[in-house]
């Protein structure tokens, strides 16, 4: 085992550190070697901070030697490049932020550092978290570790691939419309997006502020609970962070789920769903029923409207949030410019990639005079309907089970020239995002050798229940009969 420490889960590695089987420095070296040997093929990282990681690992070993312990002490974790990291380049995978060194850490990063976690580096992503395939990174695409010609999903594609390829024990991502769950499903890892406001967004570079939420990508449910426990909580620096008590997610994890009412909505199992994906998700639901859960059919009648609703609201918010990138305070610059308007337009034209430009244009159009009511306000009203669908459903059920993505990972390049087809990939993750609900993806099978995920959705701040259901399923499911990953072949 000593030579394959990089394959461990967070909780297994924590046990090894506690027992003195290996040190954090040994564990971190094992991961850095793994990154060295496979990252050229996955493209999961944009920046690897090896020296910093080894320094943090040595600190963690010293803390442990002095008698300290903690659930994340000495454990190597990767950070999506949308999170500000003091002294470490943060680009959002965009040319416009090339060379940007944040002067402060995101609150989530501060929490990890205080817990003694080791930060390995910054993971690749779709530029400014806009995309479903990670092909919109300005630097390089990410390949799916299971099949290197397939996309890993997006926008947290680098984080998902890094977890799947054992290039970190766990990773942070961000989810605006499915950007944690969708790549987790396509790469076969666990992806948890908590309730909007559960984790502080301070230092999370903004895409669509009413939707953005930090999430975690892990190898199993226990690790997701451990990480969420370290990250959740109110932060005076983010006024939208929730002042709700933080339960002991890991401690409560193994509760019995007998009597749990599981809602299944036909809207998620209709046209467009790959029948084999549907079968796999159905089998997972049956697994839960075998544990004493009860199935209830529910209706979420506005599900189909989530796609247009999201693609009005998110680009509108993005067009405002991305106004700050103009060559004045940071990033790409034009020192010869003599006219301020020209300078900004030129920097933005040069610095943003095609998908970001497309979304800025959609958002600017939807917010412009004469169209604001027809698009933006109408989408906000439909958002109310989508949210009420869930509120009604949760009067009768405890969690909702659904697919995450209509089909397994697609070929690199397959949807690059068809934005509407690309957006369809998010159709099953968007509704819970618009309603701000906690949700996760957990591997439930394979179709054509590629991973498939089960999505579970819970009411606001019911992360504990969500994780308990996922953990119960994971136990009942056991090890999936998985093919060998391309990255390990």
């Amino acid at each position, binding site marked *: 085992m000593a030579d394959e420490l990089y394959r461990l889960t967070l909780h297994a590695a924590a046990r090894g550190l506690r027992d003195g089987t290996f040190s954090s420095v040994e564990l971190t070296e094992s991961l850095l070697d793994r990154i060295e040997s496979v990252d050229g093929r996955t493209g999961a990282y944009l920046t690897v901070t090896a020296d910093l990681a080894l320094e943090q690992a040595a600190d963690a070993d010293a803390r442990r030697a002095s008698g300290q312990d903690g659930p994340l002490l000495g454990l190597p974790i990767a950070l999506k490049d949308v999170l500000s990291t003091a002294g470490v380049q943060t680009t959002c995978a965009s040319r416009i932020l090339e060379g*940007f060194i944040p*002067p402060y850490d995101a609150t989530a990063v501060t929490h990890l550092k205080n817990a003694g976690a080791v930060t390995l580096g910054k993971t690749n992503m779709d530029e400014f978290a806009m995309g479903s395939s990670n092909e919109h990174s300005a630097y390089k695409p990410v390949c799916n570790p299971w099949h290197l010609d397939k996309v890993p999903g997006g926008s947290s594609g680098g984080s998902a691939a890094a977890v799947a390829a054992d290039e970190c024990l766990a990773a942070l991502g961000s989810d605006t419309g499915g950007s944690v769950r969708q790549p987790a499903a396509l790469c076969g890892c666990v992806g948890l997006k908590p309730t*909007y*406001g559960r984790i502080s967004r301070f230092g999370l570079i903004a895409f669509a502020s*009413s939707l953005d939420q930090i999430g975690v990508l892990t190898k199993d449910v226990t690790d997701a609970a451990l990480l969420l426990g370290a990250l959740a909580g109110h932060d*005076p620096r983010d*006024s*939208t962070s*929730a002042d709700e008590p933080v339960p002991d997610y890991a401690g409560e994890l193994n509760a019995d789920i007998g009597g749990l009412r599981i809602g299944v909505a036909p809207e998620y199992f209709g046209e467009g769903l790959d029948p084999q994906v549907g079968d796999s998700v159905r089998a997972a639901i049956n697994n839960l029923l075998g544990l004493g859960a009860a199935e209830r059919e529910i209706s979420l009648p*506005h599900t*189909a*409207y989530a796609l*247009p*609703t999201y*693609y*009005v609201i998110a680009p509108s918010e993005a067009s405002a949030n991305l*106004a700050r990138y*103009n*060559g*004045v*305070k*940071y*990033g790409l*610059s*034009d*020192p010869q410019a003599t*006219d*301020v*308007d020209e*300078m900004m*337009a*030129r920097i*933005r*034209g*040069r610095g*943003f990639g*095609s998908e970001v*430009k*497309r979304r*800025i*244009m*959609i958002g*600017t*159009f939807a917010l412009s005079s004469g169209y604001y009511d027809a*698009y933006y*306000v*109408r*989408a*906000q*009203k*439909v*958002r*109310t*309907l989508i*949210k009420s669908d869930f509120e009604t459903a949760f009067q009768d059920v405890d969690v909702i089970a659904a697919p995450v993505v209509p089909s397994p990972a697609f070929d690199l390049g397959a949807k690059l020239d068809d*934005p*509407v087809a690309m957006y369809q990939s998010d159709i099953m993750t968007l509704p819970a995002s618009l*309603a*701000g609900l906690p949700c996760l993806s957990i591997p439930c099978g394979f179709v054509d050798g590629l991973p498939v995920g089960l999505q579970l959705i819970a009411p*606001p701040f019911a992360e504990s229940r969500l994780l308990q259901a996922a953990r119960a399923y994971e136990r009942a499911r056991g090890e999936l009969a998985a093919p060998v990953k391309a990255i390990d072949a």
Partner: protein
Amino acid sequence: MSIDRSQVDHAAELARLELSDDERERLRGELGQILQAFEALNTLDTEHIPPTAQVIPLGNVERDDVVAGSLPLDAVLDNAPRVEDGQIRVPPVLDES
């Protein structure tokens, strides 16, 4: 819904986004296609539905009006392309005439 070139030009100007002719032409087609997909929202009766701007039941959040520490000026200006006397320098914003 079809979009004409002047609508693309207008949005690009509002967004301070320099685009090539090719980009404008491609965006004209794509925006038309995307706005077409938005038409589905018009099939719902939303007249009496209140809009949702954010999902959490939260009003204004205020803090005590006390001075707190902030980042050192040097750290903040480090990323700026043009700095002079502790300030960021930009081309003239107002016409001198």
